[in-house]
């Protein structure tokens, strides 16, 4: 009886430990999700995804014979939007994607002298003051300048107090991550193009052709060791080998997308080799023997019988690889650099989404909100890829079954 009790008690303790541990990990993961969504959700919108990072600035003044508007607003505004009847513009205070407080144009009347303004720069065409533009400053003759720092109410008051203005500076929104999204996609395609053929071929050699001796064993354990090497060391290698190599062979002048993709490919090789080899290992030997018995050569057997059966495993390897490409930042800081660019080219600098976060956090002051928003996007891409790979490999398996039956 007492023995039974004792066992029950120890069972209870052991079971509790497993429950407790899973709860702790669940809470931690939930905590991360809550943090990311709490911080980043409010900045998540389509603008962020399609906007350029650099904002385009304009400087302009009024055309000579324009008349003041003196018009009533044609639309309703909320209480944080201020309207100037004289000039026919409505402004509001808002926070831009980089977390700065800015004055945003909410509405410009068609009869407003600001609807079309004269370019004071080198352009000859009139500039339209569009909704969503941010006004930086409006300078007047013999009157203090209205600065965006003092808010939209102040700017509207200054406008109302004047009948003309000397110059107005405004800019497009900016702060978007379009360039970094494109870079990330480029990196995924390029890296896989480098790493998959080499990785799969190496795995086939190790599993199908390599003799079972000490050299093979050593090779395998070396590849396994490479999995654990910190990525910053690969980054250093990329900086020392691939950057000079690409600079020599292409028009690049420093770190570039190609050198970054090559560095990532090296990081991924061990993962791809291992996963592919695992999936080759589980293919029953009967397949090979049956193929050989039917008169197929070793090469035919490997590439036409064994390899197709390993496709789901290779898909898993690809998924793991893509996850790693999206998440990698330390190596890319060295191999590509941290300059956020809108125009992405293979031989130019630009940032992946993860490095974009790095750049935002090293800014003064660090931009935690936008970083969290990018984190949401990264997680979203990973989830989508996960589902896609599942669907593709599921389809493939079904078709295989269909053919063989």
């Amino acid at each position, binding site marked *: 009886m007492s023995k039974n009790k004792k066992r029950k008690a120890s069972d209870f303790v052991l*079971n509790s430990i497993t429950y407790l541990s899973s*709860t702790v990990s669940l809470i931690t993961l939930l*905590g991360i999700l809550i943090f990311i969504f709490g911080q980043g959700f409010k900045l998540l919108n389509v603008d962020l995804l399609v906007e350029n990072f650099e904002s385009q600035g304009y*400087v302009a003044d009024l055309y000579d014979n324009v008349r003041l508007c003196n018009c009533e607003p044609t639309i309703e505004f909320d209480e944080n939007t201020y309207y100037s009847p004289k000039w026919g513009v409505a402004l509001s205070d808002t926070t831009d994607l980089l977390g700065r407080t800015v004055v945003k144009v909410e509405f410009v009347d068609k009869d407003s002298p600001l609807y079309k303004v004269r370019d004071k*720069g080198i352009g000859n065409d009139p500039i339209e003051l569009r909704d969503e533009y941010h006004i930086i*400053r409006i300078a007047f003759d013999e009157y203090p300048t209205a*600065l965006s720092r003092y808010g939209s109410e102040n700017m509207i008051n200054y406008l109302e107090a004047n009948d003309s203005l000397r*110059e107005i*500076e405004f800019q497009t929104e900016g702060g978007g991550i379009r360039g970094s999204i494109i870079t990330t996609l480029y990196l995924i395609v390029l890296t896989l193009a480098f790493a998959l053929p080499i990785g799969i071929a190496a795995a086939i050699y190790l599993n199908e052709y390599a003799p079972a001796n000490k050299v093979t064993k050593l090779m395998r354990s070396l590849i396994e060791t490479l999995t654990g090497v910190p990525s910053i060391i690969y980054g250093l290698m990329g900086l020392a080998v691939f950057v000079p190599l690409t600079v020599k062979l292409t028009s690049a002048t420093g770190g570039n997308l190609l050198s970054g993709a090559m560095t990532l490919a090296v990081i991924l090789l061990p993962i791809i080799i291992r996963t592919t080899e695992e999936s080759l290992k589980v293919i029953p030997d009967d397949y090979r023997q049956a193929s050989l018995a039917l008169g197929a050569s070793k090469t035919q057997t490997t590439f036409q019988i064994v390899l197709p059966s390993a496709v789901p495993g290779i898909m898993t390897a690809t998924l793991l690889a893509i996850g790693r490409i999206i998440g990698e930042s330390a190596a890319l800081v060295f191999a590509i650099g941290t300059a956020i660019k809108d125009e992405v080219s293979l031989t130019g600098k630009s940032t992946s989404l993860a490095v974009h976060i790095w750049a935002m956090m090293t800014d*003064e002051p660090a931009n935690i909100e936008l970083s969290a928003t990018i984190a949401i996007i990264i997680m979203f891409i990973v989830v989508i890829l996960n589902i896609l790979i599942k669907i593709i490999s599921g389809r493939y398996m079904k078709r295989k079954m269909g053919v063989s039956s």
Partner: protein
Amino acid sequence: MKKILSILTMLLLGVSLIACGEKTTTVSTSSFDETKTINVYTRDTTSGTRTGFMEGIGFAEAATSDSVLVEGFLIKDNTGILSTIGIDEYGIGYVSLSSVNNTIKGLSFNGVAPTEANVINDTYGLKRPFMWMLRADGDYPSQDVEDIVNAFVAFLGTTDGGDIINNQGAIALPSTTTWDSIKANHDVCIQDNSDITVRFGGSDSIQKVAQALTAAFMPKCGNFVAEHDHTGSSDAYKRTNDPAIKDTSVGKDVGFASRNFRGAELEVPAIQRGQLAWDAIVAIVNLNNPLTGVTAEDLKKMYDGTYTTWADIQG
């Protein structure tokens, strides 16, 4: 058995969530214990903010040396100091006036509150200059770059440039000329410069101001391209005029420093350097700290270790 365990787990989950929630709300209600040790935070020795602060409180030797500071001080960057003082009730640190926000308390200095108005009227004493430095004449990648840089420096001295500086929270030098009145002297600005890149670097404290200035000046000067790479005040000289570095890939056309030039930097001809603005430095403490003002003397004694607890300052 399983049911009991799962109920227990749920309870635990709930309790931990409540605990998390409580933590954030109780901070503001706890009382301040003056007998606690002062936790001293500082920037590292390459920082222009540190130089400005230490010189401003009469402790200039601490600008470049850590060994004269109080034992147990902590080095953090600008963001680090802001976020730590927000949490650490017994900490003291310093940041640029433009970084001050409502999560911390800015202390008045020698009885003058840290406001922009007080910096402009020159009553607030704890401030540092923002400086620029250029390459030597004829040492630019092209004549166009040199002309644009000269136009940019002229723009810094106009009311239009001053507006942009003020808009970023720094304090521009007084000026009465407008860009409109001097732009006829800079022919380079009426041509299309969109394929010309000008490289800006130097102090990272000035980065935001410099980026705003170039963003405003680009449309005024033929849409030239501004490339910003800010690494620290010392690089203002090194990357524009140091013969060993200025012609490498990190070379710059304009360098900024958030402190006065010193030593070898002063050998650069005076025409190649100048000041564009003032920036105030503010000593900051946690919101719960009852202290509202300090003197230069207090700050020096806190940073050299004469004062170790908060009660020392009140007394």
